[in-house]
């Protein structure tokens, strides 16, 4: 498959591993250990799936960050979604990733077992179509995700508005990326470089990380999700650290443009505006969320049904916060 197989070539991986080891050798003598955070959950998945941890030198430590949209969604959101799905005539749609996440007392999967109409869709536009097909029901879409996904949700809301679909709304818990990366800079963990997310960056562009680099002097490399991309991205970070540089570099230039996807951002910010947001196990981070603007208030399920997420009380045994901050 074009643009996939080329980035999974084992022979090249072997050579890149050698180059990475050579660059890591420049970190000093005795070599200091550097901590690189892959912010995005898809990078974490790819690193495990392709055994990347076995290929990097001992002096390069990879830690996971707060970039899995489901993991960072507080339990109070799940409780609100469950409250809404229990309403008479409600259909709840989601991407399938929220369905097993436990709320305080139940999960969407449990609720489905009890006969609630909870559907998994591929595209948010499918939920708009389902709303049209079920005019007597209220279709509530669970909007969870970062800048990659939020323009799609905004497009679905604009489509519903254009086509006069009155029974479609979104329970939004969208979040943005660079802000938590800044918040982590004053945390307990010393991070030496960021492996920046691939497709969030497709939307926000290289320029999305400039403030982070200037303010905290931390190397940032936008990296694709294929194994060779990740090996290249890690090597570029180690090189920057060895050189004493801190810049935004773009390994994934075949997809990510310096300015990002301007049109997607216009659609996103037509419907949404920045807001403060609570991250599971981390707490409130200023300007790190996206809320539906007043203008599109009737598509906001929280406003329409008068619900608000209760203050989240995470289970005391929950380690999400430590994991999301790279401490475990």
């Amino acid at each position, binding site marked *: 498959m074009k643009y996939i197989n080329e980035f999974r070539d084992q022979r090249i991986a072997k050579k890149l591993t050698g180059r990475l080891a050579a660059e890591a050798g420049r970190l000093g003598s005795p070599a200091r250990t550097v901590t690189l955070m892959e912010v995005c959950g898809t990078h974490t998945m790819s690193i495990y799936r392709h055994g990347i941890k076995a290929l990097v030198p001992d002096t390069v430590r990879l830690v996971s960050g707060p970039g899995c949209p489901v993991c960072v969604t507080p339990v109070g959101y799940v409780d609100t979604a469950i409250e809404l799905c229990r309403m008479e005539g409600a259909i709840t749609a989601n*991407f399938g990733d929220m369905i097993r996440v436990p709320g305080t007392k139940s999960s969407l999967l449990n609720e489905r077992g009890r006969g609630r109409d909870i559907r998994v869709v591929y595209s948010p536009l499918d939920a708009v179509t389902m709303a049209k097909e079920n005019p007597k029901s209220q279709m509530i879409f669970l909007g969870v995700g970062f800048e990659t996904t939020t323009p799609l949700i905004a497009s679905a809301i604009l489509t519903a508005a254009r086509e006069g679909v009155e029974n479609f709304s979104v329970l939004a818990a969208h979040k943005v990326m660079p802000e938590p990366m800044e918040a982590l800079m004053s945390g307990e963990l010393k991070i030496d470089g960021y492996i920046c997310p691939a497709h969030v960056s497709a939307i926000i562009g290289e320029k999305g990380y400039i403030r982070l680099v200037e303010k905290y002097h931390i190397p940032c490399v936008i990296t694709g999700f294929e194994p060779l991309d990740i090996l290249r991205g890690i090597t570029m970070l180690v090189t920057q650290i060895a050189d004493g540089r801190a810049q935004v570099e773009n390994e994934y230039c075949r997809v990510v443009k310096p300015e990002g996807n301007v049109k997607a951002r216009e659609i996103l910010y037509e419907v949404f505006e920045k807001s403060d947001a609570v991250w599971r196990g981390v707490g409130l981070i200023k300007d790190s969320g996206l809320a539906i603007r007043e203008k599109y208030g009737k598509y906001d399920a929280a406003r329409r049904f008068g619900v608000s997420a209760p203050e989240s009380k995470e289970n005391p045994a929950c380690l999400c916060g430590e994991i999301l901050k790279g401490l475990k």
Partner: protein
Amino acid sequence: MCVAVPMKVVEVTEFGCVAEIGGMRKEASIMLLNDVRVGDYVMIHAGFAIEKINPEAAEETIRLMREILDSEENADEVY
């Protein structure tokens, strides 16, 4: 999850496009992009094309990676 798949546009329709990978075809919205044409490769995320693949940049990256295959660098000691 922000997973997206590189797919080739085989048809541009009134509502979006039809894109293909490994013989599988799928409709996708092109609301987020300008000027999508048949033959373009796009990244598809949850039914939307979120960005086009720049073929020159992709070829340059692949060329740089293949170049090190012919280089003298020897990675055997790390295995």
